[in-house]
């Protein structure tokens, strides 16, 4: 397995990755509180971006409603915790299958009719919207008033109940991102990965080569959805409050896709690089504006919109392919 993981990577790349990993592990010791929250955000988007990338970058299906899966994971774990004291890791066992089911439903509606990516994209938006409005009326999770998790002062970190310092969440998201990276690499170099790439490149030719495209597209959707729901669980227990209006909003979905697009769709390091660039820049922007006394809601979103526009127009393949070329890191399958 190690061979499969490292095959095609230059020595240079491996050393760089190792160094970055050490840096990431040591970061909390040097970073202040604010920087730590930014890092948490970065790895949150790196992880969700990686999950989204499976659907889009690998299987070629554009999802503009990924907030749905975050929301399902978040609400499942949070509501079970609030009502029954169920630990979030068990809540995940409920949330992930539910998210997978939602994905399967969307995929089934869109894929069996062999129409273009339009239908799929629209459906993802529609279902997320449906969830947003639906949860706004869902009394068991407190509807639009919001679901609140009890917050107390914690002396230690309780990993099982996800109650604790931001540091705990940082390492959790870091581990998740690394695990996602390894998982995606394994998937990409497997039979499933090859079929996904074929479907992404030319679906009809893939069919002519014997690939059951419906089956593999569904697989991508289901895996991506389940992976994303884990981010939802963390979201819920980190912020300790959930509002349907925020969690399922289309802005969340767009935030999720930004990192992989800026970094590079279909690449392994794209989402991570994109998260660093985008969140780093966005936080710097708002920080700078706040320092001058400017606090306008919507500025960050415009920044995101402009970034998206710039990347689409100038570097459509994302920053990572360009960067890895420059740094001489190019090997197979990065």
């Amino acid at each position, binding site marked *: 397995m190690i061979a499969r993981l490292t095959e095609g990577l230059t020595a240079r790349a491996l050393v760089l990755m190792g160094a970055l990993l050490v840096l990431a592990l040591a970061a909390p010791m040097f970073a202040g509180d604010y920087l730590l929250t930014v890092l948490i955000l970065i790895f949150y988007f790196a992880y969700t971006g990686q999950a989204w990338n499976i659907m889009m970058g690998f299987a070629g299906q554009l999802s503009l409603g990924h907030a749905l899966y975050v929301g399902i994971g978040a609400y499942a774990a949070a509501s079970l915790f609030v009502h029954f004291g169920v630990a979030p890791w068990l809540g995940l066992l409920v949330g992930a299958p539910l998210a997978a089911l939602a994905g399967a439903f969307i995929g089934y509606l869109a894929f069996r009719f062999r129409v273009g*990516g339009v239908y799929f994209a629209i459906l993802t938006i529609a279902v997320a919207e449906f969830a947003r409005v639906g949860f706004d009326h869902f009394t068991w999770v407190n509807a639009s008033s919001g679901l609140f998790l009890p917050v107390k002062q914690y002396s230690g970190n309780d990993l099982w109940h996800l109650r604790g310092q931001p540091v705990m969440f940082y390492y959790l998201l870091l581990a998740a991102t690394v695990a996602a990276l390894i998982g995606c690499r394994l998937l990409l170099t497997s039979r499933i990965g090859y079929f996904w790439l074929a479907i992404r490149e030319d679906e009809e030719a893939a069919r002519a080569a014997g690939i059951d495209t419906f089956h593999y597209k569904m697989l991508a959707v289901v895996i991506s959805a389940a992976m994303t729901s884990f981010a939802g669980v963390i979201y819920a227990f980190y912020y300790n409050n959930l509002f349907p209006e925020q969690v399922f909003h289309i802005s969340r979905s767009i935030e999720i896709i930004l990192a992989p697009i800026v970094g590079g769709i279909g690449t392994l390091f794209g989402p991570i690089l994109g998260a660093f660039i985008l969140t780093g820049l966005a936080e710097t922007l708002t920080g700078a504006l706040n320092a001058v006394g400017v606090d306008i809601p919507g500025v960050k979103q415009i920044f995101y919109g402009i970034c998206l526009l710039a990347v689409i127009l100038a570097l459509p393949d994302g920053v990572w392919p360009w960067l890895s070329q420059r740094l001489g890191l190019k090997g197979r399958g990065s």
Partner: protein
Amino acid sequence: MPLDLYLNVAIGGVLTGLVYGLMALGLSVIFGVVRVVNFAHGEMMTMAMYVVITLFAALHLDPLVLLVPIAVAMFGFGYLVQASLINPFITRPEHSQFLLLVAIATIIVNVLLIIYGPDAQNVQVAYAFDSYQIGKVIIDATKLYAGIAAIVVAAALFCFFQYTRLGTAIRACADNYTGAQVVGLDVKHLYALTFGLGAACVGAAGTILLLIFDVTPSAGPAYTLLAFVIVITGGLGSMPGALVGGVLIGFTEAMAGLLFTPSAKSMFSFAILVLVLLLRPQGIMGRRLA
């Protein structure tokens, strides 16, 4: 509840639906010809609506009077956007086009948010509370005028496509891109024209819609989604289908608002979308998919 109430709400819904249909018509035209999926459709409409609000506050001109100037302005906007940003993307993969328009949509929504703030705004016309009575049926004046205006604009568009040379040229482009080029049609120009027409449609629809609803910046994405639901329900690529779909959705939303709770009415539009995709994916008036 008395039958009259149902009838009133239903008629109101149908009239509103005509305006929705006009909005969706713009989307259908753009997709049918340029083959671009306009994810910024609703956002463009809210943009037009805010312009109307500003002009109304400044000049006290009725939206229906502003209809033509707004439509013309939106035409210009659409033409520019297509010619400068979208044209190079015709040959790019589908998802690049989507994302380009998603980016434009995001920027529009948030610029509107910064300029106008998140609170709802509307225009108060003199006849805002008037109504007509036919027997036991009461029809809001605003909705009646809105419905009529929508029909007039839609009819104008139909006539354009059916009877003018330019309209025929555009339809030729839709049918056969290469063939159109071969007979000497300036396809890029025609595409930009079509996008402009779609934008004009949406500008007109938005202006008319202000008679009935107020507007917030976040209405943009909601209207984009609604436009798509209507177009898919009515049939992707069918112009009459857009109107039929619009009326259906308008009617459903009105009845849902009456029978259940108004804040959940979009869920019913979504339910219709799912039903259509399950049972008749080409839409009510669409051609059978290959």
